[in-house]
């Protein structure tokens, strides 16, 4: 197990170099003037473009530039984001908690509903619940996030006035921004609201989270239903399941204790993929609901050619994805000894 994890960790710097190299090469397509924002921490510095280009060697050979740039990136110095009006590093720490909160809430329905429906569907193959869940799975996978999101917005905000866009209503936002009254412990609003004893803010934040969470969950949940179902079907055919039934175990025990545990292995592999889906999904979801997370910032920056922000956003999402994959691998090895011992 330790060897397995160590081997994975050793690969990380290599991936890091590759990822930064890819982003750096893309940035080289821009002119030195456009790249200058990557090297400043204050927009006033941009007034002296020539000196930035000279001091940071933007006209030097690319290898020299890459090493210089990489050194800044490693120290977390990613430049100035004009769209956010703050440094890129600051922007990430400002916007990421909102995105994290959104994805954490999305994980709950995805995992719970996905595994439950997938199992039910496999156990009752070709029954009504199976047909329903297959329809849900294939329909959910075919519904583009933004079409689904816009329809939800039309019904639940436009018509029913239930769930507004944004992250908080105006008065809740004013309250939260007041450092005297509200202390941001975790910067996850629902958690902070409870820690501060402000239930109304908690409810307000939940109201704003509802639609983005549903939007974000749909596609991933559909995928999970399908994988759980086919994996469960495969497992239910195995001999040891028949043995369990033959020795007189009750059906729920056979399903939940014997079959589902083994059926979960491909599902865990998939969870890394789910993570990718969620990261892609937040860009669209946050843009639709005007939810102030990292995805909306990244999409906005891309539209304005905010080079430093775009590069920072890409690097940060790659970091998240690599860490997500690592977690999935470790989890996988932990659950399935066949992987660990190989």
């Amino acid at each position, binding site marked *: 197990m330790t060897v397995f994890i160590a081997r994975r960790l050793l690969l990380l710097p290599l991936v890091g170099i590759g990822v930064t190299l890819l982003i750096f090469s893309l940035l080289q397509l821009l002119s030195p003037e456009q790249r200058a924002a990557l090297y400043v921490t204050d927009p006033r510095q941009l007034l002296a473009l020539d000196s930035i280009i000279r001091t940071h060697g933007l006209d030097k050979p690319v290898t020299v530039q890459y090493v210089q740039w990489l050194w800044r990136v490693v120290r977390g110095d990613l430049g100035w984001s004009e769209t956010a009006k703050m440094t890129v590093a600051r922007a990430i720490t400002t916007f990421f908690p909102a995105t994290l909160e959104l994805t954490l809430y999305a994980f709950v329905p995805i995992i719970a509903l996905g595994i439950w429906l997938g199992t039910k569907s496999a156990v009752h193959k070709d029954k009504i619940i199976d047909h329903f869940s297959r329809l849900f799975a*294939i329909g959910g996978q075919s519904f583009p996030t933004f079409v689904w999101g816009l329809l939800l917005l*039309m019904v639940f905000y*436009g018509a029913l006035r239930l769930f507004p866009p944004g992250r908080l209503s105006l008065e809740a936002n004013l309250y939260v921004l007041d450092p005297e009254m509200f202390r941001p412990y975790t910067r996850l609003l629902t958690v902070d609201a409870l820690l501060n004893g402000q239930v109304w803010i908690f409810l307000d934040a939940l109201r704003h989270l509802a639609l983005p969470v549903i939007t974000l969950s749909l596609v991933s949940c559909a995928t999970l239903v399908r994988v759980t179902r086919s994996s469960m079907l495969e497992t239910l055919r195995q001999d040891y399941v028949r043995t369990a039934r033959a020795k007189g175990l009750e059906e729920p025990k056979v399903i939940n204790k014997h079959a589902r545990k083994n059926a979960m292995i491909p599902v865990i592999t998939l969870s890394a993929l789910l993570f990718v889906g969620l990261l892609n999904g937040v860009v669209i979801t946050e843009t639709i609901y005007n939810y102030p997370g990292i995805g909306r910032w990244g999409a906005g920056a*891309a539209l304005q050619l905010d080079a430093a922000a775009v590069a920072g956003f890409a690097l940060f999402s790659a970091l998240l994805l690599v860490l997500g994959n690592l977690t999935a691998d470790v989890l996988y090895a932990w659950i399935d000894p066949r992987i660990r011992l190989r």
Partner: protein
Amino acid sequence: MSVLAARKVAAQTLPVTLSTWQTAVLRFRRNPLSLMGLIIIVGFILVALLAPVLAPPLANTRDPYMMPHAGYSPDPQAPRPGHPFGTTEQAFDIYYGIVWGARTAFRIGLMVVAMSVAIGIVVGGIAGFYRGKVDEVLMRIVDIFLAFPGLILAVVVVAILGPSLQNVLIALALVGWPGYARLLRGEILSVRERDFVEAARAMGANDLKIILRHVLPNSIYPILVVSSLDMGSVVVAAAALSFLGLGAPVGYADWGQIISLSRNWIIGSGGNAFAFWYTVVFPGAALVFFTLGWNLLGDAFRDILDPRLRGST
């Protein structure tokens, strides 16, 4: 092994036999969902081919892909005679956009998938066949591309290259190929150990011939399945980029573009939330059915080509 025996081994493993086609036909006949997928896609192909008949461009138009203006109204206008699906803001005809958008969708899907598959086959093929150091280097490069969430990398590439449909195609191909490379490499690693490859080598075939004639045809099926599923998802990704404002220019017949024109009107007006429903429902439906069609078709392909999975999904 004699030449004759080697030929025989090769013949036995030829992938497309009559029985595969027979099961294919049988499968489509038996599974109504697969048949539905086929019908949807054929429908879209017909719409795309017949676009000039279904929605004739104006006589003096320079580019039939640019949607014609129906007047100068800044608000969307409800469906009415002459404009069966209504018009968007800036008075673009939605029906026209959807019909010509089918062409755009096929163009995006086919070009991106073709480019991704081509690069994926070359890289994955070389890595899987030669193994060793070449494999190691190529697969680490693939890992680097896969370290980014696809849509985010595409957003970054389009942002840097500049928003346009062509750059969307480039970005999506850049994001798409690593998946194919990894998939093909895995297949080839197992195929190249099989007897018929050894037989071909014993007969004196060179590497290129072995790869093209023996290894590739036997490892290409998963690629076919994934690429048919990808036809839908690539078009959705392109539409998402258009929706974010990074794709086709305003007024271009592209479903994502039309949907993005509906964004300002989504909560309706004057107390009626559904006042502008047609601006999102029609182009949205086109996109959903297009993806659904390819998903169903991809599933059918998988069932036909991979007997292990038959009946499990």
